[in-house]
């Protein structure tokens, strides 16, 4: 297959768009439906990435790829899910301020562990030794297939999120998010529903961390900055936090514009790419978040379809 049209920049840019779309979809279930303020997205992402990396590189496995990859990826995903259960147990019945503190605190703890456990993670210097679980000949072909696998995974997440929206469980999550006290008074297991949702969402974020780690092939703690959480939040809020496709559209409009259009196609001076563009990108993300919340709080796609249907039916 001729891959000449696919540049390394484009592969990385597309990977970022799809990955952030996946994170925003999972965040949609937590923040958009259940109203769990998860500001520690990067913590769960990093848990998956580092657990996978440490197991893959530091453990002498009796079998090679693809089993080595599958076992380590499963461990990374499960570890992020367990972390989600513990953090979720801590915060799920607390107010939004404590949720912010708990999730943000967890992300900071993951960063600290990634920095201090040098014998395992390589600390601030980073850790190499990761590779694709297959060999197709060229690096570009390997990366293109990895991108395709990520697209399939995120499509699976999208399918899951759409199913949750239409299921009785999804309706319970919406009820819990809208008015938890009322949902509880009607006998709905609000805490358990939130905890389960947080666990599944966190595991999904861990899996995306695994995918990113393999693409990068070198893990470093600077990947655990707040910028990734910001990207997922901006994508979700811009697209529409109440809608299934909101995170996907938001990721295309934010990451797609900056990581693909600006970085690959705009004829900007080379000196800008080192420092100016990344800084301006974060400023634009911050400004976008403010502008959307001030002028179109429901995002581009607006409110939930069922809300629109109810308004039409009841003439409100």
């Amino acid at each position, binding site marked *: 297959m001729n891959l000449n049209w696919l540049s390394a920049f484009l592969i990385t840019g597309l990977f970022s768009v799809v990955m952030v779309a996946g994170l925003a979809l999972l965040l949609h279930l937590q923040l958009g439906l259940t109203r769990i303020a998860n500001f520690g997205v990067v913590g769960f992402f990093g848990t998956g990435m580092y657990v996978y990396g440490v197991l893959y590189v530091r453990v002498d496995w009796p079998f090679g790829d693809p089993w080595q990859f599958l076992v380590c990826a499963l461990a990374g995903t499960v570890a992020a899910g367990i972390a989600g259960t513990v953090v979720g147990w801590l915060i799920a*019945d607390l107010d939004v301020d404590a949720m912010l503190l708990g999730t943000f605190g967890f992300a*900071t703890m993951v960063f600290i562990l990634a920095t201090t456990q040098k014998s395992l993670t390589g600390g601030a210097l980073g850790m190499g030794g990761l590779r694709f679980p297959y060999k197709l000949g060229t690096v570009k072909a390997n990366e293109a297939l990895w991108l395709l696998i990520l697209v399939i995974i995120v499509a699976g997440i999208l399918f899951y999120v759409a199913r949750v929206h239409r299921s009785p469980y999804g309706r319970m999550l919406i009820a819990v998010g809208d008015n938890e006290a009322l949902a509880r008074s009607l006998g709905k297991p609000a805490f358990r529903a939130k905890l389960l949702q947080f666990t599944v969402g966190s595991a999904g974020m861990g899996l995306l961390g695994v995918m990113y780690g393999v693409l990068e092939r070198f893990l470093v703690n600077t990947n655990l900055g707040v910028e990734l959480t910001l990207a997922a939040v901006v994508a979700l809020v811009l697209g529409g936090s109440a809608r299934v496709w909101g995170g996907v559209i938001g990721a295309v409009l934010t990451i797609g514009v900056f990581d693909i259009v600006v970085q690959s196609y705009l004829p900007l001076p080379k000196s800008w790419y080192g420092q100016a563009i990344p800084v301006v990108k974060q*400023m634009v993300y*911050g400004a976008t*978040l403010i502008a959307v919340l001030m002028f179109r709080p429901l995002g581009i796609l607006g409110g939930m379809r069922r809300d629109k249907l109810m308004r039409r039916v009841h003439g409100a």
Partner: protein
Amino acid sequence: MEFIGESIVIGLTQHAPLILAAMGFALIYRLTGTINVAYSETLTLGAYFGMWVNTNLGWTFYFSLIPAGLLAGLLSVGTYFAFFRPAKLRGMGALEVIILSFGLSIFLRYGLQFVFGYPVRFYDVGTTTTYRILGTGVSAFRVMALASVLILAVGLYLFIQKSSYGLQIRALASDEDLAKASGIRPLFVTTLIWFIAGVAGGLAGAFYGVNSNVSYLLGWRQFLFIFLVVMVAGRKSIGSVIIAGAATGIALAALNLRLSQSLYAQLVLILAFMVILKVRGRRMAETGKV
């Protein structure tokens, strides 16, 4: 005994700005009931502007505190009028306000980096003599910094607790409608609160900056502990914030002395604070059910 003395001296001299920053953060938190993530950038602005005045205009560190604090106060008021007041008037929910302040924080953080440049910067304060306090060596400069922070913290505490404006601030924080009915001008008092909070943040940032260095992440790196202190101290009074801030500084220093890496101290304290909030949250939830 030596360990306790070292912990107290190091904890208070290194982490005194935490008390000041937490007081400012608590003022806004008590009034609005929401978390202003962008408060961390008032620290960064204070540190950057103080450093700029100190290194470019040749002002001493202590004189540079004046413009640093004032500019941070104005930034705080500016963000209130530009974003937080309109958000309140539009009936924005608590979660949305937090996300809004998160976006504002990112915008200001990288905006400050864009304006003041990318390299890490330093204050020009020269070298000072070292004093021994409870057997621990502390530079004269740090002693002065601690004294300044304590004076400012006590001054702010007295202003809030004893002055007529402080009474108005507390009244507004407790019950806005009753405060209005009592003749208090909410807009003036609210503006005053945001200004004082910003000044406290800016001064804290300048102290943080002079103790180490100035970078765009200065405020953000302190935010979690400022937030933790205020949440653990609760909403009751500024006095409890001062006590919680001082205790946190001493605990961090003690853990630093006992553990092999300073980041482990932060790890232990974050974990401890999260457990405290969980236990307290449960109790509050049970009370709520009754």
